[in-house]
């Protein structure tokens, strides 16, 4: 009764050509802009503004003028592509895929699906209730809830844009392991009684809207997503890169090695404790973290800080309080924090 299928009949390719044509045009413009970023930013800094190469201000400005448009272009392009992929993975489909899977396999699958399923933290509650109500084990649901905000596309894109694909891939891998392990651990404790009672008593309605989208519709969803996310995030990108650029240009090398370097063993847990209550967009935090690493902060400590900021946010905990009793929220935060701390130490040791 609640099923709704979009009524656009199969349109001819000819009718859709304008959409594809416009898309191709935009792609070309994007590519052209991306290619000239480095030369243009250098030209602007050293010729137009007349700053000296190697000077602190020169370095900072060149960094800023290069990275801001680069990140914005990357965000626009990749969010567009990712959103189109996401039109194939509705939360309803994710839930159906996870139903009936046991712990272990379920956790792995849930964490991977958490990456591609669209998620905003205000959806955390309906998603949680919906998953739990359809019989998905608590631990598996948590693997999903941990992976989704932690491995969010803005964070991954920025890591790729600023530090290359290896760092981005490492981040995704690490995030997955944390989500899987933390979810399994939480599942082991059998904490179902710490979920608010009303959740178990709810009567869920029949299935929501099932949509079969045409390609032009997928493209328009993609561009909606870009407008929405980039529109929300661009101030943070500019501020984050500005601060990162300032650190890059003005802070002397190794200035931070003492308090954030490998020698200070307490720096990892301290970084995580500092990061948990901080609520920031990944866009704001990553450039700053990158610059800190350049100046002597060790990678593990910086990564732990970043994951704590991005993955555990106070607003999300407040929202989840509606469905989770404080004990369970405490366990959730504790397990994820420990996993992040462990990861931080590991990276400090290995890198």
């Amino acid at each position, binding site marked *: 009764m609640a099923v709704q299928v979009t009524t656009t009949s199969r349109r001819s390719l000819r009718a859709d050509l304008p959409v594809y044509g416009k898309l191709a045009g935009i792609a070309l413009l994007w590519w052209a802009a991306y290619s000239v970023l480095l030369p243009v930013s250098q030209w602007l800094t050293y010729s137009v503004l007349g700053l000296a190469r190697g000077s602190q201000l020169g370095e900072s400005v060149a960094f800023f003028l290069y990275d801001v448009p680069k990140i914005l272009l990357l965000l626009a392009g990749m969010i567009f592509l990712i959103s189109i992929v996401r039109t194939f993975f509705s939360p309803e489909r994710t839930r159906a895929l996870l139903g009936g899977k046991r712990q272990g396999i379920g956790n792995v699958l849930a964490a991977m699906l958490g990456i591609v399923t*669209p998620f905003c933290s205000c*959806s955390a509650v*309906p*998603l949680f209730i919906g998953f739990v109500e359809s019989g998905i084990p608590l631990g598996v649901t948590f693997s999903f809830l941990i992976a989704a905000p932690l491995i969010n596309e803005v964070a991954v894109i920025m890591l790729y844009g600023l530090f290359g694909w290896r760092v981005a891939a490492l981040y995704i891998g690490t995030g997955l392991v944390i989500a899987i392990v933390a979810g399994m651990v939480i599942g082991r404790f059998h904490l179902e009684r710490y979920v608010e009672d009303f959740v178990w008593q709810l009567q869920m309605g029949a299935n929501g809207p099932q949509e079969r989208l045409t390609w032009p519709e997928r493209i328009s969803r993609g561009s909606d997503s870009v407008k929405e996310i980039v529109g929300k995030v661009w101030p943070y990108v500019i501020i984050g890169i500005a601060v990162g650029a300032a650190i890059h240009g003005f802070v002397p090398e190794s200035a931070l090695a003492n308090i954030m370097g490998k020698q200070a063993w307490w720096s990892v847990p301290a970084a995580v404790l500092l990061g948990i209550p901080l609520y920031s967009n990944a866009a704001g935090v990553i450039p700053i973290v990158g610059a800190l690493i350049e100046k002597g902060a060790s990678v593990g400590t910086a990564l732990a800080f970043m994951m704590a900021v991005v993955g555990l946010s106070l607003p999300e905990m407040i929202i989840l309080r509606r469905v989770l009793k404080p004990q369970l929220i405490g366990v959730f935060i504790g397990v994820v924090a420990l996993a992040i701390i462990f990861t931080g130490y590991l990276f400090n040791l290995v890198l």
Partner: protein
Amino acid sequence: MVKVKVLGSGCANCQRLEASVRRVVTSQGIEAQIEKVTDYAAMMKYAILTTPGLVINEKLVAAGRVPSDKEIEGWLLGTTQLA
């Protein structure tokens, strides 16, 4: 009269959806009763997984995004034709 419910707990998208609905209703002169639902137990009745959600005459037509004004218009005008 069309009964519209906006499901969401107050994040930016939920507010944007409510604003869009009100805008379309006013500009098209549609007779509609708009209700904002923030209680999760009430929301789950519509099997919603991602907020914000748009419910028209007790049917969930969109979830997890803010549909365009044109889409909202289509749904609202479509129902008044059926009535």
